[in-house]
């Protein structure tokens, strides 16, 4: 399993390569992306702050739960921090499984739990103001 919190551009090829093995028949990969609008306002950019040591620890706990519950093969998660422009990827979650159903369900469940539990926060800077979106611990698309 792979869990990273990084200021650098995320790497989809790397997370997919990480979860793949010879018995993998399906990979579900989720991209959380900065979009140009939220709550009717025009978003200019986002700033992500994190408690990295705890974030990777919580990610691991969630991934272990999900792996056991859904019978998937492997999991890799990357989250970016710092200033992200519209169109940039804030979150990647990859799940490998023998079959597509487990891969999809586990990946979706992982992203849901990620957003509720992992200590990462975002500040939305929009036309006319800025706000820490604290009700939603993670990316904008929730």
């Amino acid at each position, binding site marked *: 399993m792979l869990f990273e919190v990084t200021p650098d551009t995320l790497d989809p090829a790397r997370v997919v390569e990480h979860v793949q093995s010879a018995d993998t028949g399906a990979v579900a990969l989720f991209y959380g992306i900065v979009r140009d609008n939220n709550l009717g306002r025009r978003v200019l950019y986002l700033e992500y*702050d994190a*408690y990295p040591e*705890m974030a990777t620890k919580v990610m691991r706990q969630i991934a272990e739960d999900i792996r056991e519950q859904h019978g998937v093969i492997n999991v890799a998660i990357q989250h970016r921090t710092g200033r992200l422009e519209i169109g940039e990827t804030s979150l990647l979650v990859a799940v490998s499984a023998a079959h597509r159903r487990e891969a999809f369900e586990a990946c979706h469940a992982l992203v849901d739990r990620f957003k509720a539990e992992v200590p990462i*926060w975002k500040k939305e800077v929009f036309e006319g*103001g*800025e706000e820490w979106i604290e*009700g*939603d611990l993670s990316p904008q698309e929730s």
Partner: protein
Amino acid sequence: MSTARVRLFARLAELAGTREADVELGEGLTAADVFAALADRYPGLAGFATSVRFAVNAEYVPNTHPVRPGDEVALIPPVSGGSRAV
């Protein structure tokens, strides 16, 4: 002198103007006590006394969790779901 290191994030770090602070520990202090000491120093934090969550050594803990010398206490900003513009 026995202290705990406190880490602040997101809105709380902005309000305090710092991401880290050391707090002196008296006898039997809890996470909530550490927060109260910090709110005295950084009054902008005071409004979060009932909504902040705590982690000690990177594990979520209740407000009443005892803090020991050398612990790392993290102030986890509230999950508000609200949409107040700052």
